[in-house]
């Protein structure tokens, strides 16, 4: 049972303390995220119930690199499919079927194609889970409405130039309806 406990403790995220602000309007929220970044914070995060236009630019989030994972594993799948059909049909146990060549490439294209798609798709999803640290067990939630109709900014304590009082003032200025100390 040790190993199960180990896995569970690994999946339980370590909560960070910090300041959180809640917004109701998405446009003010995106603007606020930009202003918080301009104030020098780098480790903060923005929580929203759906992906927001312009938040990546406002927060300086780089373009996702997952397509490279997809490409790499897609090519791996393609190579594997090519190699395996060749090896199994013409090397390991070559069987003459209908007088066709042992290495009948056109007939193997469907297999190669499906291997490509399968590995590309599963690796992309795997990469997503890996990057986002999912699955997580009982991650702290700032406000349950953040997955419904509210938008939240969270600045952790270890961010550069963290100052709770200043942050509260900044959040209020930028239109937050609620500001509180929170863990995330």
């Amino acid at each position, binding site marked *: 049972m040790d190993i199960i406990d180990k896995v569970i403790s690994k999946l339980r995220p370590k909560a960070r303390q910090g300041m959180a602000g809640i917004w109701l309007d998405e446009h003010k929220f995106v603007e606020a995220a930009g202003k918080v970044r301009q104030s020098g914070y780098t480790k903060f995060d923005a929580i929203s119930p759906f992906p927001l236009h312009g*938040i990546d630019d406002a927060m300086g989030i780089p373009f996702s690199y997952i397509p490279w994972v997809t490409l790499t594993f897609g090519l791996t799948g393609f190579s594997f499919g090519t190699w395996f059909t060749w090896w199994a049909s013409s090397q390991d146990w070559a069987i003459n079927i209908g007088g066709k060549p042992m290495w009948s490439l056109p007939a193997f294209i469907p297999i190669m194609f499906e291997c490509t*798609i399968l590995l590309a798709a599963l690796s992309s999803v795997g990469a997503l889970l890996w990057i986002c640290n999912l699955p997580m067990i009982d991650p702290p939630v700032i406000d349950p409405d953040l997955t419904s109709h509210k938008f939240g900014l969270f600045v952790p304590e270890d961010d550069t130039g963290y100052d709770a009082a200043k942050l509260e003032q900044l959040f209020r200025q930028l239109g937050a309806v609620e500001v509180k100390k929170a863990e995330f």
Partner: protein
Amino acid sequence: MIRRAPLILGSKTYETITKDIVSLVESFPGPSYYMGIAGAQFLLLIFLFAQGMIVWFGMGMMGVNHPVGWGTDIITFVFWIGIGHAGTLISAVLFLFRQKWRTSIARTAEAMTVFAVMTAGLFPILHTGRPWLAYWLLPYPNQRGPLWVNFRSPLVWDVFAVSTYATVSMVFWYIGMVPDLATIRDRAKNKWRKRIYGALSLGWRGTARNWNHYEMVYMLLAGLSTPLVLSVHSIVSFDFAVATLPGWHTTIFPPYFVAGAIFSGFAMVVTLMAIVRELVPVFKDYITIDHMENMNKIIMATGLMVGYAYGSEFFIAWYSGVEYETFIFMNRAFGPYGWSYWIMVTCNVIIPQIFWFKAARRNIPIMFVVSIFVNIGMWFERFVITITSLHRDFLPSSWGMWIPTLYDFGALFGSFGLFFTLFLLYIRLLPAISIAEVKPVLGVGREGDGHGHH
């Protein structure tokens, strides 16, 4: 500027959207739902009984015999696989084309795909007659050599195509649902609901850094699913087209099958959406008449493609000058199974023409009836292809007839029980409309609303 019709009706806010969709999971259903699921369960019992008898006593319980070795199992397999294609088309292809109206139907269409593929997958396995040896279809290291599967066989391509399709569709469906499952988790007051949906949501919290990667993966999956869905029915058509049988051995099969699959799939989506709109009245604000009309337009367009393929097949049979080919097509339309050919033509080509009229495209009872006819017609298309080519081929001495038994009917009608049981459970247990995808399109077609300016 031409005003766009709103995609979501009623005066909704983000909060009411959440409530409308999640409340379905949070409350107990009414009597009509229980009646529906009782009916589905009854059909499912018939399926289990029929297939149980077939597995126990053997394939002789069904109508397949010499010369028609492919019967209900193969016809129904192709039928269900075809149904699945519309779901991927809506969720992936319309996503890549930035069709915003897809958002409120995508989740349910995708669920339909998953359940249809699950239902379809059973049939070839049961058709083998010894389903407990189904793993022989996979190239695994075994102690018989190892003896590998024949990679030149379309049946093996099918194993790869259908299992890849099932896997990728399920993953796509599930990943799309993760943010909505987190919404259910965060609203849950009940301890077990919080635990179960908490586990299903994988601990998703919707941070901007996560959304960034999430949207990328969603797009990648859509981009991968698009060629995948086209490949699957092409490969299903190879099961026929690679054989040298007249009526099967034609190059038109892959596009013809794909068009037919989308046609039948959209008909099934319309059938299901009409039912869902009745079962859950609040969904009428999300799945509007405009949505239904769009789908009816696609049904008509793909129906015309299918009709063109029927005509083209006949023309080529005559133009090629191959007497076997000519004979098989004359036999299809005017032979002993001619009735099935004319059912197919009536249901797939003639009846959908009513959608030229806008009033018919926007009338729920009419489209419901038409969609049922299309479903029937598309089952008969596969019947016509499978049975008529097999029952009379080159030598009149080896001709014969295929007569279905009660177990054929049990397997066919029972499969709807499996499909509808899964579907009805899904409607009540999982977010049936994509909450996170619907919210960004709330502003479409609404004037003076800040949400619309993208």
